[in-house]
């Protein structure tokens, strides 16, 4: 089977929503590939649920790249991702072993947190020479030579749900585990637009400024409440009613920085607040708060 990159790209057509990539960004991406100088991307999965990869596959936009398939074909040289790659075992491990030979550097994408408990044995990356390689050791080695490290999701960024009390396996984020600066595309999961934007921007240059939690301010500059169409509306006192502000039910929109009100979810099919549910603050380091839906128990009103 020898379908070329261009042939395959021609198969990938679709429509809708903006990724926020400029025409200049796209030209630069195309140039990278035309010159075969596109940096390699390694996508490692640690202690997580694969939900961020699933969210990435939900990517859809009106202009190139329009789909996840197109991102993989045209914009990213994704050498390693265990959920989609063909080979297993030693054949797979030898791909990441090749990272040290990447002359132009590479981008490391990490999904899932890094367990430090049990000497790292709560999450194993692979076996090499008959020995288990912990995820902690794998991510540390690959991070040391990466030109950029992108954390996709709250687990890789700072631990996420697995790190909630009592943090049974001692999970921390990639920056804490490796002491290397990371770009944190937060969310549980992050919106696919944010993931593609982060990776594309990192490939062509810079994601711009980061906030105190390592999140690109371009994506995480406003709170959900700030841009919420239900702001200033009458308060809901129960679930299942359209149009009301959900703050009294425990909506965490006022203290959660995310672009959900403008990006919506799943090709604008819906989003948490429009579904009369609450923002549960999944882009914040404090996620998951206890209680998660603390109706009437918060003090910040």
């Amino acid at each position, binding site marked *: 089977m020898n379908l070329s990159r261009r042939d395959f790209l021609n*198969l990938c057509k679709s429509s809708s929503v903006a990724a926020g990539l400029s025409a200049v960004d796209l030209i630069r991406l195309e140039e990278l590939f035309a010159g075969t100088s596109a940096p390699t991307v390694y996508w490692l999965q640690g202690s997580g649920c*694969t939900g961020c990869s699933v969210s990435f596959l939900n*990517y859809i936009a009106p202009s190139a790249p329009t789909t996840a398939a197109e991102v993989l074909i045209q914009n990213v040289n994704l050498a390693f991702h265990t959920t989609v790659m063909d*080979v297993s075992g030693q054949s797979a491990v030898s791909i990441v072993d090749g990272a040290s030979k990447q002359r132009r550097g590479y981008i490391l994408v990490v999904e899932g947190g890094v367990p430090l408990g049990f000497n790292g044995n*709560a999450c194993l990356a692979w076996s090499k020479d008959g020995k288990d390689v912990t995820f902690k050791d794998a991510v540390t080695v690959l991070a040391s030579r990466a030109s950029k490290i992108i954390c996709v999701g709250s687990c890789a960024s700072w631990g996420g749900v697995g790190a909630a*009390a009592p943090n049974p396996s001692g999970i921390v984020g990639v920056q804490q585990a490796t002491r290397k600066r990371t770009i944190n595309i937060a969310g549980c999961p992050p919106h696919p637009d944010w993931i593609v934007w982060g990776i594309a921007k990192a490939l062509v240059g810079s994601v711009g400024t980061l906030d105190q939690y390592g999140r690109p301010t371009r994506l995480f500059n406003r709170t959900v409440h700030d841009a919420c169409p239900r702001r200033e509306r009458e308060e809901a006192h*129960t679930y299942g009613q359209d149009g009301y502000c959900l703050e009294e039910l425990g909506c965490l929109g006022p203290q959660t920085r995310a672009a959900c009100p403008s990006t919506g979810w799943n090709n604008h099919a*819906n989003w948490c607040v429009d579904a009369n549910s609450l923002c549960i603050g999944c882009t914040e380091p404090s996620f998951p708060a206890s209680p*998660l839906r603390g109706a009437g128990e918060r003090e910040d009103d």
Partner: protein
Amino acid sequence: MGTISYTPTSVVLDPVSRVEGHLKVEVTVDQNAVTDARITGTMFRGIEKILANRTPLDAPDITQRICGVCPVSHALAASETLENAAGFTPPANARIMRNLVLGANFLQSHVLHFYVLSALDYVDGPAMPPWQPSWSGGKRLKGDTATKLVNNYVAALDIRRKCHEMGAIFGGRLPHPPTFVPGGFTTTPRKERIDLFKKYLAEVSTFIRDVYIPDVNLVGSVYSDYLKVGAGYGNLLAYGVFDQNDSGTDKLLKRGASYRGSAPVPTVDTKAITERVTYSWYASQSDNRNPTSGDTTPQFPKTDAYSWLKAPRYNSEPCEVGPLARMWVNGDYQHGISVMDRHLSRAEEASKVAAAMANWVGELNPTAPVYRQYSVPVSGSGVGLTEAPRGALGHWINISGGMTANYQIITPTCWNASPMDERKQCGPIEKALIGTPVDNINEPIEVVRVIHSFDPCLSCAVHVMRPSGEARVFTLAF
């Protein structure tokens, strides 16, 4: 034949790619066939421990994060567990919207499984990473047929995305929908949402009929020898799913069990579910317990143990769970039990679920309630039995002082990927691997075909942890 002597060879595949989560398999191959197999999951998070001492109301949101491929099943199981503890029945609209979002995710997961997770076992993907390098040996689909299947792989990526868009219309977003709450559902079934859902469902249903099922049949005919590979025990267990009345007595996919090909028994007695730890790194006090009184006391090292996965058994039998078990118990698919039967029954289940969804969406009442006030009982216990796309899923809770005292989850992959029990009966995937022919031990693609047919989800197997080779005592924070 002559007197050539063979030396059994052991090969470790770690990681096994195209599964959800972290999976390692070690097989012994003798005379070109697998003679022994050990399955080990390689991630432990302890989600159940995180649930303890929180309000039970957090369970639907937290348990979804066990798995990004089947979060809807966990959200549903947790909601039903809490409602069971309170003797609460949610409004009909909630039951129907839960079915529709779960159905959308079943379709998403089944399409993802066949094309993204399994197809590369039978055909080479595009000539670029991440589809290259590949294990090309043994891929019998070539030329135009191969091109067509790869084209459909791309179309399937689009369709599975649309399945999630369809589910998000009511679910709020996918993965990890925020709309499943004890007491019902949060979204209102407005007419424009119903209409949009129908539009998506029509497109997805057409794909299942015209592309997915023909492709599975194509692979099944080219690899008809895989109708004889990977049979396993033939013990099939299904909790059932998709309630079609408020009492839950009428399910689209019925509850039941079948032993070694016998006629299905239409009930499941949860008291007959126990978890064995003879070959797991847990102390004898954890052995042979029902999940309502589950115990997880680690013991490492431990003679003969090789897994941190416990071994769930039903009436002391290892059981396969998943679409084949459901369709068999339901009387919809009883052609056989094998690698290819798992793919074929999964595709037929997708068709059955999609057809039922078209009826359910018509039963929504835009003006009726979706939620009724739910209060957590001060004390009590509850159980929620449902199905994930990859098999039977059970949640159990004990509530004390209005807080979660103990939460236990037995996931489908705990059943399928379990280790041996005290009778030396190995787990269902291990059993299915034994006898599998292997042509090239360096690229044992036949082994991953068997594993992939079960659609394992290792993030779900939360008990699992594997220590390093050195003897070391671990203190697990249970």
